[in-house]
Every structure is written in structure tokens, then in C-alpha cells.
């Protein structure tokens, strides 16, 4: 009887452990965060796993102790467990449970610091990155490729194995740019141009979505990031250049009007559209934004200052 219960407990324990491993190793691409395809997401996953293990050091004893104590010291006639109503101090015990969390926080804090600073830098140093300027609009995403001089709406194509320098802003309520399988998100904010390094080492189509609520159409603000080998990527750029219409300021003004639309691409982009937008929406007050980036004839009329 007792033996059986014990066996069952062990079996459940093993089941739990394997479930945990399965969860952490990523049970398929559905669990996007646990199944990263690039170095940034992988680094974040490592931190996630580390934090699970470290917090587990506290959680598991707490749960075990709770079950044990509540069972052993329950108020039942004939319970012969010791009863010491005045026992309420123990220097040794207190040192243990002030100490262990301090050590855990120390370790996790150290790795947090390391990863935080690492993610500010490009994931690979010896490959020239590609810059993509992302603007969140109501309720769509505009991707501009300043070097390739093309633009897309609601999808982006990137080369595999190349660090992507996403520069993020918003020309509408703030949103958050998140492609879970590539890595963590960052806010897109009016008047700011924030940088987010991501990289895909594997071809595929990756789900992305705005993560910060922006109103009625927010639920439909999804986009795909399509990773392709570099050669195919450049082929795609050429195709866009030769088959699409240019993005004009008039079209941009149209895009700014709140609506939910599908995907499009544009063969060219107006000069300084991105920087001008950031500058006019408040970028001029940010350190490091150069006046030349947005002023002059390129700045949009509705954003002019007087």
C-alpha cells in the first residue's frame, strides 16, 4: 500500500520533470519563445532557463515544506508531532533564508547584467548588418530598407545569418515590435528611434505582432518576418524594385489614416521619410539626433513647428 503510493509519487515526479524539460526544450515551434531561431532569442532563452532553475531552488523546498508541515502538524487528536508554541527565533535558520535568496539574486543579477549589455551590441561582429526602419502606424507596420531603398507593409524579408538592425519608431500611439522566434521586443515610440538587434539563422516565416495596445485595430496588427538565404533576399529586393510602385509622401499620408490592411511593397522610399518623422514627432529633443536628419525641405508639412 505504502509502497504503491511511493511508486506513484515517483512516477508523477518523473512525469513532471519530463514535462518541464519538454517545455523548456521547446515542444515545437508553437512555443515560439522556447524555440528561437536566432542568437538573440537563444541568449534570452538561456536567461529564461537559468531563472527557472534558480527560482526552482526556492520554490521546490517551499512547496515540499508546506506539504510536510501542514500534514505533520495538523491539529488532530493523537498527533504526536512536537508542539512548541513559544519557539519563534532561530538565528541559524534566519541566516539561511536571508542568505540563499541573496546568493540567487546575486547570480541572476550578474547574468542579467551581462545579457542586458550583450543585447545592445550586434549578435555578430564580422558580418555587415542590414538596417530596417520600422514604423508602427494605426494599425499596420511599415518597413523601410534605407540601403536597398525599398519599403514593405505588414511583412519584412530578411537574409539569414545576417544581424538585422531594426530601428523602431511610431507615427501613431506607441506599440511594441515583437517577433518571438527571433528574440525579444522593444517599444516603438513617436519621436524616438530605438535600435533592436535581431537575427535569423534559419529560413522560415516568423510571426510578429505589435505587443502594446493601440486601439480598435490592435488585434490585427500582425506581420510576418520572412527569412531567406542572402541570395534569395537580394533577388527579392530586385523584384520589389522592378515590379512595385514607389512609396510617396501622399501614400504615407494614406497609410497614416487608421485602417487595417494587407501586405504591400514599394519600389522606392522618399528621402528622409523615417528620420523626418522621428524628428518632427519629438526626436529633435533626443540626445544624438542630428538636426540635419529631419529639418529642411524634407520635413513634412503637418509636422512643421510653427
Amino acid at each position, binding site marked *: 500500500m505504502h509502497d504503491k503510493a511511493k511508486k506513484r509519487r515517483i512516477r508523477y515526479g518523473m512525469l513532471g520533470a519530463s514535462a518541464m524539460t519538454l517545455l523548456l526544450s521547446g515542444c515545437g515551434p508553437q512555443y515560439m519563445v522556447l524555440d528561437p531561431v536566432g542568437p538573440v532569442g537563444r541568449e534570452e532563452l538561456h536567461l529564461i532557463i537559468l531563472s527557472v532553475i534558480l527560482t526552482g531552488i526556492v520554490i521546490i523546498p517551499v512547496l515540499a515544506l508546506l506539504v510536510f508541515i501542514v500534514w505533520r502538524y495538523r491539529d488532530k487528536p493523537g498527533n504526536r508531532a512536537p508542539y512548541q508554541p513559544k519557539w519563534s527565533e532561530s538565528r541559524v535558520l534566519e541566516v539561511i533564508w536571508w542568505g540563499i535568496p541573496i546568493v540567487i539574486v546575486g547570480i541572476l543579477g550578474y547574468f542579467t547584467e551581462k545579457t542586458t549589455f550583450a543585447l545592445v551590441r550586434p549578435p555578430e561582429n564580422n558580418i555587415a548588418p542590414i538596417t530596417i526602419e520600422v514604423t508602427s502606424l494605426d494599425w499596420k507596420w511599415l518597413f523601410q530598407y534605407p540601403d536597398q531603398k525599398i519599403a514593405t507593409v505588414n511583412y519584412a524579408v530578411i537574409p539569414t545569418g545576417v544581424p538585422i538592425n531594426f530601428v523602431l519608431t511610431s507615427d501613431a500611439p506607441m506599440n511594441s515590435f515583437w517577433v518571438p522566434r527571433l528574440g525579444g521586443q522593444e517599444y516603438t515610440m513617436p519621436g524616438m528611434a530605438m535600435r533592436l538587434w535581431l537575427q535569423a539563422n534559419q529560413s522560415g516565416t516568423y510571426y510578429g505582432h505589435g505587443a502594446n495596445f493601440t486601439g480598435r485595430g490592435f488585434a490585427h496588427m500582425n506581420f510576418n518576418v520572412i527569412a531567406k538565404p542572402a541570395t534569395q533576399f537580394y533577388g527579392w529586393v530586385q523584384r520589389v524594385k522592378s515590379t512595385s510602385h514607389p512609396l510617396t509622401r501622399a501614400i504615407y499620408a494614406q497609410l497614416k489614416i487608421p485602417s487595417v490592411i494587407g501586405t504591400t511593397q514599394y519600389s522606392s522610399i522618399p528621402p528622409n521619410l523615417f528620420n523626418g518623422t522621428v524628428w518632427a514627432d519629438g526626436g529633435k*529633443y533626443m540626445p544624438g539626433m542630428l538636426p540635419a536628419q529631419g529639418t529642411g525641405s524634407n520635413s513634412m508639412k503637418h509636422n512643421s513647428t510653427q
Partner: protein
Amino acid sequence: MAFIEYALHGRVANEEKPLEYQDPEQSIKILGFWIFLATDMLLFGCLFATYLVLRTHTDGGLTAKQLFDVPGFATETFLLLTSSFTGGLATLAMRNRNKSAVLAWIAVTVLLGLGFLGFEVSEFAANVARGATMQRSAFLSAFYTLVGTHGLHVSIGIGWMIVTWIQIARKGITRVTARKLFVVNLYWHFLDVVWVFIFTVVYLSGVVM
């Protein structure tokens, strides 16, 4: 007297202490007010934070340097510092049980406060005449809100002083009116402290930067 004294187990009034603290109920109210001041300090702290962040966001409008008029805010500072002093003299007179001096010093304080407000209003009016309205830029929104909130506090302080004046005139100096006077003066000195930071952080820094 009050239920609080009984709650405090009949601790009797202590003649050794300054008048406003002699009665336990009154000293509890004074402590409550001190804590309120700590809260109010945070309120101003947040306004200062906002001002500091938006200080340069002038949107092509007038900047701090162009806007501030040194003799103007120097006069305001002098008036407010002096009123803080005369307010203190009212407390002193209260502790010396000199009712007519109390009334006189409160009146002087109120007049100085009104003078301060007068200068501030005319400063704001002059700014607005130059096109520097609250709606013009984030800097101006933050400036008017910070300085205006202080001005609003001063106005409330003036009204409160008047109400206290009436009560002391009618009731004389009792432990209750002594506490009321002490508390309104705490408020008044606190506003002086806030002003010191306004002229340091807003005006002087604005002029030198």
C-alpha cells in the same frame, strides 16, 4: 476635552511644551500635517521631474532664457522669503500669547503673499502677451503647471490665513487656534522651501543655461 485625549489615556496637557503642542489632540493634528507636507513634497517632486524632462522641449517657441525676467522673480523671491519671516513672527507672538501681534503679523504675511501673487500673475500675463501660453510648447506647459501649482498653493494659503485670522480675532489664542496658526504657518514655510527650489531649478538654472 476631546476623545483623543481619552484615547491617549488621559495624558494631561503639558505646560512645558510650546503652546501648540500642549494638548495631545492638537499635536496629533500637527503630526498629521507634517506627513501631509511630506506627501505634498512628492507632488512637487513629480512636477519638478516633469519640468526637468521637458525643459528643453520648446518647439521653436520662447526658451527659458528668453522668458525669465531676473528683477521680476527676484522681487517675488524677496516677498515670499519676507512673508515666511513675518509668518514666523506670528507663531512667535502666538507663543508669547500676544493676540494683537499675532493678528498684525498674519495680516502682514497675507499682504506679502498677495504681493507675491500679484507679481506672479503679472509675470504670467506678460509672458502670455509675448505668445508664451501654456498651449504653446511642452516646456511652457510644464513651466506654468509647476509654478502655477505653487501659486495655487499660495492662494490657498492666503485664504487659509484669512480664515485663521478671523478665528483668532474671534476666539483669541486657545490651544486650538494656536495649533491652527502653527499649521498654516508650517504650510507657508513649506511653500517658501518649494519656491526656493523653483527659483533655483527653474529660474536661475534657466537663466544660466
